[in-house]
Every structure is written in C-alpha cells, then in structure tokens.
C-alpha cells in the first residue's frame, strides 16, 4: 500500500511539474493580453537546447541557461510579432509548434545522424527521502515549480507588476493612458512567460531524462494550456490543477496495473478505458468547481493605438 502511494505521489509530481511550468509561463504571457499556444514548441526547443548546449559546453548549468535564453528569444519573437506587428497570435503559436518539432529533429539528424534521440548528459540529482525504509524521490524542479507558482501568484495579486500586467490584458487602452507602455509590457511578459515555460523543458532534460527524444514532450504543452484555462489564469489554482491532473494521470497508470494483479487477468483493449480517466476527471472537477470564467479581456487582440 505504501509503495502504491509513494509511486502515486512520485508519478503525480513527474506529470504535474511539466504542465505547471507550462501553465505558469502561459499565465504571465496571457495576463498581458498575448495568447501563446506555442507552449509545446517552447518545451521542445528548451528540452532539446538543454542537451545540445550541455554537450557543446560541457556544463549542465550552461546548457540550462542557454535553453532558457533561447526560450526567452522565442518569447521575444512572439512578443514582437504580437505587439508591434499585430500578428495573429494563435497562428504564430501554431507555426512555432510545427517549426520546433521539425527543426529539433532536423538538428539531431544533422548533428548526430539520429532521428530520434540525443546523447545522454549527466543529469542533476533529485531530492531523495526515506519513507518506510525506501527511497522517495522529489524532483528539485517540482519544488522550484511550486515556489514559482506561489511567487507568481503573489506578484500578480499583490504587487504593482501584477496590476500592470492585468491592465494590459484587460484594458490596454486604459493602461496606455495611465502611462504604461503596453507594447513593452507585452513583449516583456511573453519573454518571461517563455522562460518559465522553458523551465519545463529544462526539467525534462536536465533532471528527468538526461536526454532529449522526439517523444519527450508528447503534447504536454497542450495539457499545460488546459491547465492554464482550468486555473482561470490564477497561478495558485494552476498549482492545484497540475497536481490534480498529475494525480489522475498517475492513478490511471497504477490502477490497471494493480487491478491486473488483483484480478489475475490480462487487460488488453480495455486498458484504453482507464486512460480516459485523467481527462474525464478534469472535466468533472472543473464543472463542479468553476463559477466564472475570468480570462484577460483583451486576450489575443492586438492593441492598436489609432
């Protein structure tokens, strides 16, 4: 039983961390009024870059920093497109996802002659505790994600930076009239948002897997987006949402495995039904919990001065 629970907790944290970083980044991004559905793309680029630059420089730290810088650059590009060039933000995100996936594979092919995976790098140690005499793992990045989640909540709700961001996302015209430089805030928010998303990618490569395969991210960017909407653009709720989804995903994995042993039979296609669990549970929970949607009002609308 205790094994079952520790496995559940570990798996919950694994799932939750990535989608939490994605959601936290997207929240910063979108609070300013800029949609970013390129979370998946940022994950991909960041996870890949972490490995690529760690190998190039020989230092994991340098690799991670490079990955975050590149994530920030993607944010800069997206922000410039969105703010100054009034580009359609969704479309730019769709493009980004396509380019990111394709380009990393092309780069792997060019660099290592391999279409799917990079070489391994030495990854960082996760935190390890003993529970009932057995090691219990908590990823360092999980803790980082939770800290950032709480800090982000504090900044958004309690500081003037939060007000500025919210003003740009809700009523850019008013923000501008108050002396806020909407364009600059939006670009900055996309950069910071992208860097936070990038942390998700760094986590995947630097702490979880130690390499990048083209199946490393596997659509988690979209789950992160769902988590963002789930949270109603509230970082504290995003923490809860990530844990909730992670928990149900972990459960959907453990339950059929345990059941097989219990029932003494083999699951074949019916195992697919278990996989619907996290998704249906999320819909159910949000239906019960949600009272009012509060997305930034000017979300996705280019701010046009004249």
């Amino acid at each position, binding site marked *: 039983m205790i094994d079952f629970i520790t496995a559940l907790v570990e798996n919950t944290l694994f799932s939750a961390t990535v989608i939490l970083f994605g959601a936290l980044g997207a929240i910063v991004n979108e609070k300013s009024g800029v949609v970013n559905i390129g979370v998946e793309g940022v994950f991909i680029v960041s996870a890949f870059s972490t490995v690529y630059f760690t190998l190039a420089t020989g230092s994991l730290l340098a690799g991670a920093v490079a990955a975050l810088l590149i994530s920030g650059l993607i944010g800069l590009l997206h922000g410039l497109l969105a703010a100054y060039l009034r580009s359609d933000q969704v479309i730019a995100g769709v493009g980004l996802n396509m380019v990111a996936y394709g380009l990393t594979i092309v780069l792997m092919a060019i660099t290592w002659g391999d*279409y799917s995976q990079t070489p391994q790098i030495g990854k960082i140690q996760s935190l390890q505790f003993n529970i009932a005499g057995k*090691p219990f793992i908590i990823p360092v990045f999980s803790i980082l994600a939770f800290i950032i989640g709480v800090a982000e909540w504090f900044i958004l709700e309690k500081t003037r930076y939060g007000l500025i961001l919210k003003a740009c996302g809700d009523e850019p015209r008013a923000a501008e009239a108050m002396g806020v430089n909407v364009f600059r805030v939006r670009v900055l928010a996309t950069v910071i948002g992208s860097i936070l998303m990038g942390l998700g990618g760094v986590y995947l490569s630097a702490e979880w897997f130690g390499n990048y395969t083209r199946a490393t991210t*596997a659509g988690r960017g979209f789950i992160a987006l769902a988590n963002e909407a789930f949270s109603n653009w509230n970082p504290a709720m995003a923490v809860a949402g990530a844990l909730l989804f992670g928990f149900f995903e972990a459960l959907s994995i453990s339950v059929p495995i345990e059941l097989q042993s219990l029932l003494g039979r083999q699951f074949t296609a019916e195992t697919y039904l278990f996989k619907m669990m996290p998704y249906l549970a999320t819909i159910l929970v949000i239906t019960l919990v949600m009272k009012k949607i509060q997305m930034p009002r000017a979300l996705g609308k280019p701010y046009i001065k004249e």
Partner: protein
Amino acid sequence: STSQPAKTTTTTSKPVKVAILFDVGGRGDLSFNDMAWLGAEKAKHDFGVTVEYTTPQSQGKMKELLETLSSSGEYDLIVLVGFLWTSPLNETADKYPNQKYALIDASTFINRPNEVDILFSEQEAGALVGVLAADMASKIGCNKVGAVAGMSIPPLWRFHVGYLFGVKYYEMKTNKTIGFLWDYTGTFGDTQKGYQYATSMLQSGACVLYGLAGLTHVGMFDAVRDWNKQGKGTALAIGQDASQEWYMPRYMPFSGAKRVDVAVYKAIEMVVKNQWSGGIHVLSLKDGGVGIWDLDGVKYFAEIAYNQSKLEAGLTPDDVVRIVNESRRTYITETGWSIMQELQQLIISGQIAFKSPSTEDEYNQIVNALKNGDLNAALSKGKV
C-alpha cells in the same frame, strides 16, 4: 522459401532502384523503421542499388503516395514498412502487375506474383525473452516481470502471447511462481508515459521490464536506470527490435531481435539476384529473423551508437559487449539459459508452433488462458 529457376535474361546495366516507404513517423522510432533503413543501407552497400526513402505524413496519405510511385514505373521494387500499408497495397498492387512490392511486417493474405509479404513470428522471440526475464526476476528475487507495451496491435498481440508463454514455460519447468504485468501505454511516442508506467510496475513489485513501445519504452529504460541508481532496488530492462543494450549495458542484459533489416535486405536481394517469388514469408527463430541478439549484434549496434556519440561517456563498443556479457552472467542462471535453449530447440525443430491471434477476442482468450496456466492454449502445433 521456394527458389525459382534463375532467369537467364541478364539484367540491363541500369542499376536496380528501390523505394523504401516507411511507416508513419519514419526513421527515429528505434524500431522497425530504423531497422528497415539499416537493411536497405546494407543492400545499397552490398549490391550497389539505388535506394530512395520517404515517410508518409499519415495513414490517409499512404494510398495516394503508393499509387503515384507505382504509376511512375521508376522503381524496380517498392518496399512498404509496417502494417498500415496493407490496405493501400491491396488497392494498388493489382493495377500495376509489373511493379514489385515487398510488404514488411504485415500481410495482405493475398498471393500476388508481384508482391512479397514478410512477417515475423514475434511469439518466438517473446517466448525466449519470457523465459530469460522470468529467470532474471527469480534471480533478483522479485519474482515478477512486466512489459511496457505500445498500442494494442497484432504484432504486439503476438509478443504478448510469446512473452507470457515464456514466463509460464519457465514456471512449469522450475515450479516457481512468477508474477506477470502487461499494460498498453496507448502510445509509441511518449517517453514520459513510458517512465511512469515503468515506475508503477516497479513499485508494484516487478523488477524486469520488457520494452515494446518504441520511443515510449526509452522512458522505461530511464526509469529502470533511475530505480537502480536511486537505490530503490535492482531492476533490469529488456529492449526489442534493434539491440538496445548499449543504452545502459549494466541494466539491460539483452534485447529481443526482430530483423526488419533482414527482411528488407532479402526483398532487395530477391530483385537484384532475380530470385523474385511472390507470396508470404515468415521470418522466424529458425532462420534468424527473430530471437535474442547475440554479442555480435550488440557490438554492431553499440558501434552505431558510438558513432553517433550516444554511448555513455568513456565507453567503447567493446566495453558495451563486455559489460553486457557480465550482466548476462550475473543475472541469468545456468538453468534459465538451458530452459531457454530447450524451448528454442522445440521451436526451431518445429515440435511446437504458436498461434497467431487474428482477432482481439482470440487474443484475449489466449492470454487469459495462458495466465491461468494453460500453456497449450498458445500453441497451434505440439504440446508442452
């Protein structure tokens, strides 16, 4: 295989041209697409044929792709990798009787003179893996094995049947009880899932995991490695298709082999050497089409990995072979090895043959009968 009388017409000086059409996803799946590429590259090297590759964007595009390539008449042989090509081929093959096709890892179950289907007896590989996995689990002391599988598709049904059979065979021979876990992750492309399924299986007591999920099971490998490194216990992984021991030789004593490369090579060879004969071929244990990779194979793939700088820092291919050899000695007992060889003998000699479930119901029936200890439920010929 039947050998046709060699045609006397000498081939024109025009070099043979082959198109390899991968499965969706193409190269980089660490599985049959990559293996197909290896086989074709070897053929290119050995016979000087021209080879062109392409990857369809989705199953929905296969029919048209095949149609267009067939109508061009440009290729002496079109090699189709993976079962998704079955129906596109069915709709095309009769229209172009002069176009030769090789369908790898699937069959239309229709005999056409211009079509070669090459199948594998995955059950046979699975069975040998099952015996050794059970033996390793018993040696480590957890007495439970597992498999992280991709999606519920016929080749995996066959692996399931074989793997479970092998484990039960081992139980029968040793009177030990070995637990067995099998779960479909629902994907061939999600390493996070692979890791998490593996973690769950390890937590629930398994210590030997068989990877049958392409890129997904790379995540399983990582989970097994972490399990050992984090001091949670001893765990081992088993790879499949290519020799994957190089990925972590200490924790992966062996991999199952499925020689898609051989299939592709053979198909090309038939064209080059004018030995074409249409029909269904099954690559089995007997002709080395499936089985367990020997150390030469391990070295071959370790060399490839080495050239792609993917080997663990400081290791050479020879080190990989040495370490793999050591782990085999450490984790596989004499008994286990001999039970495996005995089973191998039964299969090669044709004393027993496995069923190939053709429907999900049949598959379900077989694995659940096996689970309950009825080994013969898996056999179409012979008894154990």
